[in-house]
């Protein structure tokens, strides 16, 4: 490699600790917590269920999942490396002390301040930080905040209720809407689906539940903010979103965690159900603590996300912007069962330092004329490894099905890696499957051009990366596209030095 590209690598690899561009969400909130001792067995599962006052069907459901999990081997196929996790050293439940809050006024002020520090004031008036609500009130955002294991606040509840939309914590849904929960929980991601899904099914602590009734357009964006605070706790949230016939909902999740030297496990399960003519748009901005420059600490983000387009003409669209976590292992997927149903996956995954990401999607075409689109943008800097893994399956009944996949990688410096693993399984010769892939590099010439025009290299890289991600940002709700671009810029500030 040329002298100049080494210079670029130096620039990118530069220690940023001194520059103060640390992970901004990395603070710890001092609050008293009610935390279960580390370890996992039947007693622990029963204790979680009891703490949440769950009906016995739920307890049994969890115990069944635990037994299945105990028989499963740890998966090793992803293109990531990490030491074995000792599942007995993790605590499976942590909650801010006290009784569960029933309104915002009852939430511990420290917790509220935490969200304010993160730029997400929970007070209803404020909606989301930096988001100026236009005259058209539909662009308000309702927020469910999950602090460690429990939901601490769900805003805008009343306005949603007027529209018939249910937006509450999973715990509340289990109590208040057992029929819906029993019908759909585990219907898209079955308990034994995979190791981490089984684990989640046994110990999930909380999460968000959404039900949008027939022919209803959810009047605002729904959002969940996850925050891991306690040390040595895993976070296992469970999200279930159901869009009934002709319903529409747009949902956004955001995630942060304090900086800790130890790795912390996050193993969530998200299930989406779209009935006939329904549409669900699910966006993620993931900014979990990625670990330090040397790869110490950070979140292991092992998440199972799947949507089922059960009804004809239904549509599920995943958009993710992944900048955090030490290791990301995640494949938001769509099962295209209904005729003419549509699945979409738009992804930006940024890795730097020693981060590893193995992410992508699975599109399973079952119904006729089903259509899927995959756009994946991977950005690697530092010594990170970034993999796209995708599977498109065309079942025999999927006549006239189509898939389009576009997979682009952008490299910054010489020490990082980008990999693509596209799998195509088609039992259908007539199915149309298109795949395009590119790999490019932020070149010294591009940076020099920017510098020559007065733009410093850090801004230049951010601008180039933003341009590279445009196709994905376009699919985010307006308010969050701006946030995502900013987040990327902040994440890159550290990466470019």
């Amino acid at each position, binding site marked *: 490699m040329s*002298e*100049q590209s080494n*210079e670029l690598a130096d620039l990118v690899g530069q220690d940023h600790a001194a520059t103060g561009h640390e992970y901004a969400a990395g603070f710890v909130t001092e609050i008293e917590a009610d935390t279960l001792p580390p370890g996992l067995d039947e007693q622990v599962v029963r204790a979680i269920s009891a703490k949440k006052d769950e009906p016995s069907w739920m307890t049994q459901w969890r115990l069944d999942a635990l037994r299945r999990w105990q028989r499963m081997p740890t998966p090793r196929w992803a293109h990531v490396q990490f030491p074995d996790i000792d599942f007995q050293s993790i605590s499976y439940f942590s909650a801010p002390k006290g009784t569960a809050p029933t309104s915002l006024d009852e939430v511990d002020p420290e917790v509220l301040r935490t969200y304010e520090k993160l730029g997400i004031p929970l007070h209803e008036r404020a909606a989301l930080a930096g988001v100026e609500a236009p005259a058209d009130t539909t662009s308000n955002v309702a927020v469910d905040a999950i602090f460690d294991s429990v939901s601490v606040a769900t805003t805008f509840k009343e306005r949603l209720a007027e529209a018939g939309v249910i937006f509450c914590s999973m715990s509340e849904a289990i109590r208040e809407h057992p029929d819906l929960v029993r019908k759909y929980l585990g219907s898209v991601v079955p308990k034994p689906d995979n190791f981490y899904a089984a684990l989640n099914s046994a110990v999930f602590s909380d999460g968000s539940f959404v039900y949008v009734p027939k022919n209803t357009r959810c009047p605002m964006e729904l959002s969940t903010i996850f925050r891991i605070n306690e040390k040595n706790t895993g976070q296992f949230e469970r999200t279930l979103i159901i869009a009934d016939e002709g319903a529409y909902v747009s949902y956004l999740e955001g995630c942060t965690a304090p900086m800790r030297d130890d790795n912390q496990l996050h193993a969530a399960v998200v299930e989406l159900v779209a009935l006939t003519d329904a549409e669900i748009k699910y966006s993620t901005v993931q900014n979990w603590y990625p670990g330090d420059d040397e790869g110490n600490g950070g979140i292991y983000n092992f998440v199972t996300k799947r949507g089922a387009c059960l009804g004809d003409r239904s549509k599920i669209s995943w958009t993710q912007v992944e900048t955090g976590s030490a290791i990301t292992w995640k494949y938001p997927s769509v099962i295209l069962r209904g005729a003419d149903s549509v699945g979409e996956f738009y992804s930006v995954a940024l890795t730097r330092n020693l981060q590893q990401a193995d992410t992508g999607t699975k599109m399973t075409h079952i119904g006729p004329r089903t259509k899927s689109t995959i756009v994946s943008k991977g950005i690697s800097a530092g010594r990170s490894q970034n993999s796209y893994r995708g599977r498109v399956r065309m079942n025999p009944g999927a006549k006239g099905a189509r898939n389009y996949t576009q997979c682009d990688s952008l490299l910054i410096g010489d020490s990082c890696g980008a990999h693509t693993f596209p799998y195509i399984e088609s039992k259908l010769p007539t199915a149309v499957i298109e795949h395009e892939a590119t790999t*490019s590099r932020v*070149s*010294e*010439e*591009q940076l*020099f*051009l*920017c*510098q*020559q*025009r*007065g*733009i*410093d*290299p850090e*801004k*230049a890289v951010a*601008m*180039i990366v*933003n*341009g*590279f991600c*445009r196709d994905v940002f376009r699919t985010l709700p307006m308010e969050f596209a701006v946030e995502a671009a900013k987040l990327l810029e902040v994440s890159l500030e550290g990466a470019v030095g």
Partner: protein
Amino acid sequence: MSLLHIENLHVDVAGQPILTGIDLTVAAGEVHAVMGPNGSGKSTLANVLAGRPGYDITEGSVTVDGEDITPLSPEERSLRGLFLAFQYPIEIPGVSNMEFLKAAVDAHAAGRGEDPPSAVDFVKRARACAARLELNPDFLKRGVNDGFSGGEKKRNEILQMLVLEPRLAVLDETDSGLDIDALQVVANGINAFRGNGNAVVLVTHYQRLLNYVVPERVHVLADGRIVHSGDSSVALQLEERGYGWLDG
């Protein structure tokens, strides 16, 4: 005082001496042409002025408005008003021309301690400059040089110059690859820009451009040094007789 002053400049590239003692002084308001055979060091001179990494100054000095610019980063030189139009403009796919220009203009505003111009003012200005170069406004929405023809890339360099209004513009073969009409348009752009206290260094192989943009001085570079300087008639002589004329 001279705007650009180069004294005894020696430059190595990859350990090889390329420039071996350049002296050049350009006053505010002047246009100087630099000519010379392929490989004589014209682009090396342009790049070293802009502070491109990999070009090592082993001897000599470069000042702009009396300030030694050699310790400055490329972006600091840009903010001091130095502009380089590249011989081979590079593409930045995905970043629109408009966005790129805005980032540059904002950086320059910040360098002067000013607020960035409003989006509306900026767009007006960018469109006006594009119009002067007879560029379609859609041009501004396309990725920087992405899929541009050779001539379009050159015009785009001049567009950036007009928007940034530099104090010293170094144009490296901006005329190469332009069709006859485009040459005229670019020449008009340069003429509209020249004067106003700024200076232009025009690197070119052809008399054609100099018919439209008449320089105060013409310098001939050979083997890393200036071997001849004169008024605009030098270019005419070279056109007629070739570089052999200087050996005689």
